[in-house]
């Protein structure tokens, strides 16, 4: 046992300083997507909603409803439309009210502009 104790001391401290200081291992984590409204047309929104395996994305009229709680950060939407979806880099997502996890993302001008959204000006 003392041997173990010494090993422990030799090993040194690995403990994160979070929340006092940010932890850089967070950069490795898969994080929920972030969307570029400019690139989100109705067609794109429907494609995203269609590939989302956890039904985190649904289109409600001219709004893309994004349920961060249901999202598993699987990255399929990003793979589907890379131009419109990127990585939010957020991992501090705890909410005390479920509704706060549901985001309403406006679609680009009623979705008139088709395509990848690359030509949509921000």
């Amino acid at each position: 046992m003392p041997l173990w104790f010494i090993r422990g001391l030799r090993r040194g401290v690995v403990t994160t300083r979070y929340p006092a200081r940010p932890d850089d291992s967070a950069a490795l984590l898969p994080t929920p997507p972030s969307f570029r409204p400019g690139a989100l047309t109705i067609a794109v929104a429907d494609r995203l909603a269609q590939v989302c395996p956890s039904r985190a994305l649904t289109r409600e009229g001219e709004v893309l409803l994004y349920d961060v709680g249901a999202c598993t950060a699987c990255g399929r939407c990003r793979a589907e439309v890379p131009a419109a979806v990127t990585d939010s880099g957020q991992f501090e997502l705890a909410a005390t009210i479920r509704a706060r996890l549901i985001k309403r993302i406006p679609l680009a001008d009623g979705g008139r502009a088709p395509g990848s959204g690359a030509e949509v000006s921000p």
Partner: protein
Amino acid sequence: MTAGTDTSRGVKETSEALREAVARQFGRSLHIRTLDTGSCAACEQEIRLLAAPHYDLHRLGFFFTPAPRHADLLMATGPMIRAFGPAARKTYEAMPGPKLVVATGACALGGVYQPDAFTHGGIAGTLPVDVWIPGCPPSPLALLQGLLVAVGRLAEKVQDLSFTQNGTPR
């Protein structure tokens, strides 16, 4: 969006009161009981790692306890299998008040499983949830943040996030 929304609204005020009561009564020490309502075991692994050297939640005054009688906070994972519902309710009722429930992981929040004959698709319908931690599985860091939000030691960030950004994606 999910069965849980109304419930969570219903318990909002109480959950605020609870958090204050918790802060008052337990100071900065809190005992945690976990509850697996049908998870895939990944959330469990992340929760176990909270006690590991890299995260060491004891330094923040959190402790795990196997006995719900000693627990102040219930970390529930999984989509709440219907057959497990009674056991989950028993566990919650076995805890002394004031008590908090933390829905942990996408399953518990209604992400992976839709309500059907097997599961409730989330725990909100069965237990009054106070804090929701997304992620599949939520990383230990996310869990730490959730716990600290639960006891009111960190402000929640998510309501200020829009998950939209302009400019071309990285």
